[in-house]
């Protein structure tokens, strides 16, 4: 039992890990292409909305102590709804993992392994997942708790290391493409906060379920700060008219850091840290996918699934033929997919379940 329970701080790290990983690949680029120079203001704006949504999710989950969204959907609509919701969220975790993995590996392919086939860049991640899936959940979370501060420091370091190269005039025009694009259509940038999806699944793992509010709010706030650092680094460093490098904009930003004569090209070290972070992301999404699958199939043990899900991720990540297809999927489909599942479907299920509970309470 103790092997599956995590502390509230570990839970915060777990949620923020999901936020952070997407920033390492093309998330800042997508945000910048949507709202241009107004991205920082837009991020603050969608960040506040995300905080509110996190609070709403917390309030809705509060009535179902230690139940996740799959259990709640079972309560709402029986096994059929449970299987549908479970299936949708498994698809979401698998697709987002595959997408992120492929994008990151394309970056690695370009930066370090131009002569190597992309499959061979992907496979080491899958091998690590085989191992981590077969070990306890708490060991996975503890590892994240060790790695996450290093990742956070790396981003702060990246920001301050590049400070001398920043052109603050790039923040102007402050409203980018205009008020409408920043605050009305720009609301779509909320897909950046996809890590909120974890909030639906962590209640059963919490040692102290009463700290859910703290977890929900803190994780979104830390994630927001992190986004601001990343986006500001890229916005102030590169001209959005020129467009950032095609792959891994943060990696490109890291190559500008210079400390004296000796430390001139530190981007590889940043990449080392980000490899760890991507690994952590895959661990989390894999564990949640396995856990949901176990629930909907009533399996007793998780270990037999330890190899199946990583292989599924490998297969799906190899589906897109090239990087431009991934970019197209990422910027045109994936963001709507996230909004639909996390912010519409998830909240709707919770809302209906709460209404049902209230109704039952009144009947009694």
């Amino acid at each position, binding site marked *: 039992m103790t092997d599956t329970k995590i502390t509230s701080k570990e839970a915060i790290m777990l949620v923020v890990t999901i936020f952070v990983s997407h920033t390492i690949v093309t998330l800042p680029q997508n945000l910048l292409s949507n709202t241009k120079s107004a991205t920082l203001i837009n991020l603050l704006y969608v960040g506040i909305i995300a905080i509110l949504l996190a609070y709403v999710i917390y309030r809705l989950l509060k009535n179902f102590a230690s139940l996740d969204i799959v259990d709640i959907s079972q309560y709402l609509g029986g096994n059929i709804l449970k299987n549908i919701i479970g299936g949708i969220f498994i698809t979401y975790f698998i697709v987002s993992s595959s997408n992120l993995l492929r994008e990151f590996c394309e970056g690695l392919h370009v930066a*370090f392994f131009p002569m190597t086939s992309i499959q061979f860049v992907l496979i*080491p991640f899958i091998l690590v997942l085989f191992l*981590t899936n077969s070990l306890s959940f708490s060991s996975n979370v*503890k590892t994240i708790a060790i*790695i996450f501060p290093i990742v956070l420091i790396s981003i702060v370091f990246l920001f301050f290391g590049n400070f001398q190269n920043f052109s603050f005039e790039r923040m102007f025009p402050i409203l980018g493409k205009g008020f409408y694009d920043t605050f009305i259509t720009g609301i779509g940038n909320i897909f950046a906060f996809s890590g909120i999806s974890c909030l639906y699944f962590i209640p059963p793992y919490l040692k102290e379920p009463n700290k859910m509010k703290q977890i929900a709010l803190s994780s979104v706030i830390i994630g927001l700060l992190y986004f601001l650092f990343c986006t500001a680094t890229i916005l102030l460093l590169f001209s959005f008219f020129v467009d950032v490098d095609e792959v891994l904009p943060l990696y490109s930003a890291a190559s500008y850091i210079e400390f004296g004569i000796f430390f001139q*090209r530190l981007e590889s070290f940043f990449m080392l840290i980000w490899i760890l972070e991507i690994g952590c992301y895959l661990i989390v999404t894999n564990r949640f996918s396995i856990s949901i699958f176990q629930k909907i199939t009533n399996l007793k043990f998780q270990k037999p699934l330890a190899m199946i899900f990583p292989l599924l991720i490998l297969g799906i990540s190899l589906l897109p033929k090239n990087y431009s297809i991934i970019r197209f999927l990422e910027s045109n489909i994936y963001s709507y997919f996230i909004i639909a599942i996390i912010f519409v479907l998830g909240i709707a299920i919770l809302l209906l379940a709460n209404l049902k509970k209230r109704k039952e309470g009144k009947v009694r």
Partner: protein
Amino acid sequence: MNIKRMISSLFTYIPQEQYNFVLFRDTTGNQSSENKELKKDDENKTIYPSLSVNLEYVKSKYNSMINSDIIIREFTLNARGKQYSAFLLYIDGMINTDIMNKFVLEPLMLRNKSNMYDNEQNRIISEAVTNNITVRKVKKFNLADYIMSCLMPQNTVEQFSKFSKIFNDVNSGNCALFIDTLNIAFDIEVKGFEKRSIDKPENEIVIKGAHEAFVENIRTNTSLIRRSVHNENLIIENIQIGDITKTNCALCYVKTLANSDLVAELRYRLNNLEIDSMLSSGQLEQMIVDNNLISIPQVISTERPDKATSYLLDGRIVLLVNGAPYALVVPAVFTDFLSTPDDKNMRTSFSNFIKWIRILATFISLLLPGLYVAIASFHQELLPTDLLYSILASRETVPFPVILEILILEISFELIREAGIRVPSPIGPTIGIVGALIIGQSAVSAGIVSPILIIVVAMTGIASFAVPDYSFSFHLRIYRFLFIFLGYCCGFLGIGLGFLAYLVVLCDTKSFGVSFTSGISPLQKTVGHSYFLQPIWLREFRASYLDPKKHNKQEKISMKWKYPFLKEEDIQ
């Protein structure tokens, strides 16, 4: 005659009879089941009242006809003026002959006041007279009690009715006294074998700590611990392990501190070891840990009584094995392997500085060669151009790829290290000098390896020596090769993912129910335990992951002399 023999040997074929010894294996499996039955019988065998039967049994069990050091001394025992046939069983070389002569044989054999006193055989305990009838309460004469209380001036004498117990103690250096008509035997402590005296620790050197080390004798080791703990709550339980060797092991803990569940778990594991022999603490360590597949040490092994005592007072459990000059401490967490007893003896700032150095040493020992290979193979841009040029220039004459080059050097280094340990101690430093200086210099001159790689491997070697625990250092040495391979295959991708997998395994490891990474996972608050030491007055608590019975190690204000006017309620 000789000519005839020569001719016959030339023309006659004489088949050569070659001596050929072959050990045939019994594949039927009957032997083991027979042995088990015999063992069961032997364990239940009780002592006979007839001395001659006992004598025959003892002779046959100990093979006294062929066993040169088994002594059976037959004599006549005097008790209350009567004479009884008796014999003593002991092993030559394991007993103290002075004690044997003066305090066993002399009182029993020689006629003296005590054994010649011939009073009534039945002793009157009390007497009452009612209506002219005298009622006497009489205690019958009991030879065993009489010998025990009057004829045996020994501090440790026990009576046993089973042969197995008697034999067990005789094998440990006691002597057994068998007397005719008695169906018990006396187990008399007369141990007196040679043993090593307490010496300086050889592998755990400290600057400011005590200079005593454990020895092979378990009783000396327990006394060393008891002397330091100096408290009646220190419990030293005796557990015998091994069907053949019946090795004495001591389970030591402080009753008022150690978690009862932890003690029970360890006792359970020790009592459920079905093995023939237990000869060292290293064997025991492998028999009791949760996971032997990974090389991460899960038990602390120390030769220092002060270190063992310190852990006992933290609420941990110490295990001693007779014949092993090392104590095992459980449970162990990651940071224990980077700590030394000197840390607590030095000022906090000094200790913490050294602790930083040890972390660095751990990383260098584990990752530096792997990182070098990764940088040399995939990430050359990390190096400043001048340095890159000098590395390339130094590698110009080397005909091997970097992986082969580093493997040659690493394996050479391991060879030198192993040879340094195995050769007689006066030659040890010579091996180091020959290996490190001469071979290294020659290898560079011959163009087999590059000078920069010599620096990398030497740094790694030195760093591994800075890791205080031998087992942990060994573990790092093994995993280093894995990281070299990963660095060569995938550069930082391999190193990063390898490190991630390593961390997960580390976090998954448990030592007797305690997470191995307790205290290093930044978000798991561990009260009373941190790698870096707090000032001595702030070390108030015992480590919470041990769940000790007493959490406070010292008062909130430990240095009360500093605050003479502070009242008790102010402290609260």
